[in-house]
């Protein structure tokens, strides 16, 4: 019975979302105050029914109701409770439901937090978000209903894909979705401002916290996915330029640009139309990411099942949303020009460079990700684009970007007088260069030139991010959450840069076939294979190897990687064993029995790889701190300039 309740709840949610969109968008135009006032009720109702639908799906999974197709395909009676809940987003239908629920939660948050904003404006924002919700609910009900029944019911389920049975992966999709969908808030704010034909500095201040928080979750989501691919898929690296990774990285880069350009719009009233364009493209790329992952056009570990009907639906939705927003932009943005000037070495300039470089980075990734699909569609042959393309083209804009962070952070608004801030910038640069050279010579004697360059840039960013907070504290000045968050996020970026620079240049990898007692040498470490034994888990059998790692004859770690066979889905699965130390990871994954008592093993020493994810988490913390700055919440109730009806009518005429 509960699956049917879930199904009906979704239908009701669709109706309420449609009401939310209609009242929100038409209310201001028709000058119907009652319509505007009805919007929050539609928002609340939609949330209640979406949450109910989600509860029904969770219930079906937890109770293992194998008469529901989604449950039969993605769970099993031997599946632990935690993963039964996580199976909600383990496949296509459930993750769409999660997308909708997350959108609904963001909508509720906007409704609650924006009572001080002009009602008309917020009604339009909620109307846009309602439209998005309608699209996704229609999509779910029409092509991807998670509540479909099986008749007769399956005796037991096909189980959750073993690679998804993992803690980091259980929380990766929700985080990523909170980020993806959070960008819809900035998108809706941008569309509402364009419909009103009015965009002032207050608008940017309203939009900033939402964007920053969405960005923080997106950061966490991407980092979790990357961490998972590292230890669960046994690929042994942190980034593979897999199309689905790129799909989440492009909106992140644009959102990062948006955060910075919103700062300029907020403080100086500049970059207005550019900010709008970024807000539109950030969310469009999120949708594109969803399309790429869900339509099955991608060759990737993430693509579930290919279903052309779904692809066509998402494509149409994409065209409507992006096309509509861009049309609105082409129509309204020219009226939003700002005329204030700024100098070449002012903070505005540096933020402009930041934006250009980030957008270039997103563009080269976009080109490399879409090229295979375009080529395929045009019948030009199946080509593929790999790290050989992405690494150099991504470095090209990001190296100058990293070099500009420290200078830009200390530049003052409007005026380009660098002499006042020269000292901390140059002092931190000198210190960073000295430290980078020392670490390079001392710890990583060899390696490419990228190592000292990356180390130097990372250290420079970290050191110069500390200058401002320390200076303020010493002079007894208050430190706003915004500045603190920015500094912390930049320190995270510095740590990330250190990690990437070192792990990319100083890692040692080796695949070898070893017999019991035989060792392989990786740099200063010797990996000794001590044999295999059977092992058993909650829902799998495994062969477990023992590998002892030594340095200078002293045991450093005992690693026990596994080759698992899950009972239901019979596929072999590699579970890598990793010893994490603060400055490096020792990694072993099992290959196979190659005969004569030998096993093939994949062994790696990866220095500073944990800095990559640690840096990302610090960035996320910085984002959350900045996003919760009180400044954004002290919104003076903005009085409607004229009696509502007259104002609305005037707005409609000029529109």
């Amino acid at each position, binding site marked *: 019975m509960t699956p049917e309740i879930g199904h009906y709840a979704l239908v009701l949610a669709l109706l309420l979302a449609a009401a939310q969109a209609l009242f929100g968008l038409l209310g201001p135009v028709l000058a119907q105050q009652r319509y505007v006032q009805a919007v929050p009720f539609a928002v609340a109702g939609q949330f209640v029914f979406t949450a109910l639908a989600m509860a029904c799906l969770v219930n079906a999974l937890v109770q293992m109701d194998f008469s529901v197709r989604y449950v039969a395909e993605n769970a099993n009676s031997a599946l632990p409770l935690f993963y039964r809940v996580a199976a909600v987003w383990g496949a296509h239908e459930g993750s769409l439901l999660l997308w909708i629920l997350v959108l609904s939660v963001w909508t509720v948050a906007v409704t609650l937090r924006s009572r001080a904003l002009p009602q008309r404006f917020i009604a339009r924002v909620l109307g846009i978000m309602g439209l998005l919700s309608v699209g996704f609910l229609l999509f779910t009900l029409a092509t991807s209903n998670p509540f479909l029944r099986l008749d007769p019911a399956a005796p037991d389920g096909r189980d959750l894909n073993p690679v998804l049975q993992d803690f980091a992966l259980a929380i990766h999709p929700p985080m990523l979705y909170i980020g993806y969908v959070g960008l819809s808030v900035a998108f809706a704010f941008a569309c509402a401002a364009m419909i009103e034909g009015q965009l002032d500095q207050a608008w940017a201040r309203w939009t900033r916290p939402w964007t920053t928080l969405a960005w923080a979750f997106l950061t966490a989501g991407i980092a979790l996915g990357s961490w998972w691919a590292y230890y669960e898929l046994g690929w042994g690296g942190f980034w593979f330029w897999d199309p689905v990774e790129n799909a989440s990285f492009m909106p992140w880069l644009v959102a990062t640009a948006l955060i910075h350009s919103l700062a300029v719009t907020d403080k100086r009233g500049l970059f207005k139309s550019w900010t709008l364009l970024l807000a539109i493209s950030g969310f469009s790329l999120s949708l594109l990411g969803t399309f790429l992952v869900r339509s099955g056009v991608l060759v990737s570990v993430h693509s579930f099942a290919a279903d052309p009907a779904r692809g066509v639906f998402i494509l149409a939705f994409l065209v409507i949303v992006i096309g509509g927003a861009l049309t609105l932009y082409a129509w309204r943005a020219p009226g939003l020009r700002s005329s204030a000037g700024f100098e070449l070495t002012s903070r505005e300039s540096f933020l402009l460079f930041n934006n250009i470089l980030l957008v270039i980075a997103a563009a080269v990734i976009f080109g490399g990700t879409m*090229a295979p699909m375009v080529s395929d569609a045009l019948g030009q042959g199946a080509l593929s684009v790999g790290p050989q393309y992405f690494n150099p083209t991504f470095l090209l804009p990001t190296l100058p970007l990293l070099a500009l962070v420290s200078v830009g952070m200390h530049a003052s608004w409007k005026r380009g007088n660098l002499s006042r801030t020269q000292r901390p910038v140059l002092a931190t640069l000198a210190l960073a260069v000295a430290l980078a050279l020392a670490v390079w010579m001392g710890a990583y004697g060899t390696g490419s030139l990228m190592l000292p360059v990356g180390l130097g840039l990372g250290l420079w960013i970290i050191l110069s991010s500390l200058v401002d907070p320390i200076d303020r504290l010493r002079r007894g000045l208050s430190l706003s959450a915004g500045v603190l968050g920015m500094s912390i996020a930049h320190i995270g970026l510095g740590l990330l840069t250190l990690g990437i620079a070192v792990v990319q240049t100083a890692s040692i990898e080796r695949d070898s*076939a070893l017999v019991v007692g035989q060792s392989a040498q990786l740099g200063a470490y010797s990996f000794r294979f001590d044999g295999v034994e059977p092992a058993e888990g909650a829902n799998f059998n495994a062969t477990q190897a023992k590998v002892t790692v030594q340095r200078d004859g002293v045991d450093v770690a005992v690693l026990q990687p596994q080759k698992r066979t899950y009972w239901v889905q019979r596929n072999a699965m590699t579970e890598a064993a990793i010893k994490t130390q603060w400055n490096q990871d020792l990694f072993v994954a099992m290959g196979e029995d190659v005969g004569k008592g030998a096993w093939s093993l994949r062994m790696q020493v990866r220095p500073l790889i944990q800095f990559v994810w640690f840096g990302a988490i610090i960035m996320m913390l910085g984002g959350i701190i900045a996003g919760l700055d009180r400044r954004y919440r002290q919104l003076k109730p903005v009085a409607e300039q004229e009696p509502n009806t007259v104002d609305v009518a005037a707005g409609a005429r000029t529109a």
Partner: protein
Amino acid sequence: MIARRRRLVLVLGIIAGVAAAGGLALQAFRSNVTFFFDPTQVAAGEVKQGQRFRLGGMVKEGSLVRQAGELEVRFAVTDFKREVPVVYRNVLPDLFREGAGVVAHGRMQADGSFLADEVLAKHDEKYMPPEVARSLKKGETRSGI
């Protein structure tokens, strides 16, 4: 006037930067894209000498050979018309097996075998790389499995 000239410098600088980045990206793209070929195309000599490419098809039943205790494996990739012998000296992925779809990255060697530096088999046993599926459909003469 000075402000205007500054802005001009800024805009020109940005345009130059974007153009340079675009040019370099295109260059990197041209020299680093790898194309997909099936064994029939390889046999027909469609692959340029020394070109890195992706070879896709099914692992031929009974073709997997390994010197006991060694890492190196040899197997044949087939599209049921032609086949290409492959040499690989790393750990094979979990789902690699005879009769299943596979994509290998690498180059042809002088002896007519394909030296792979990366072998991909997908996580889903029902999954077949779309390009392999298409290439097999073209062949149509499914016998073997």
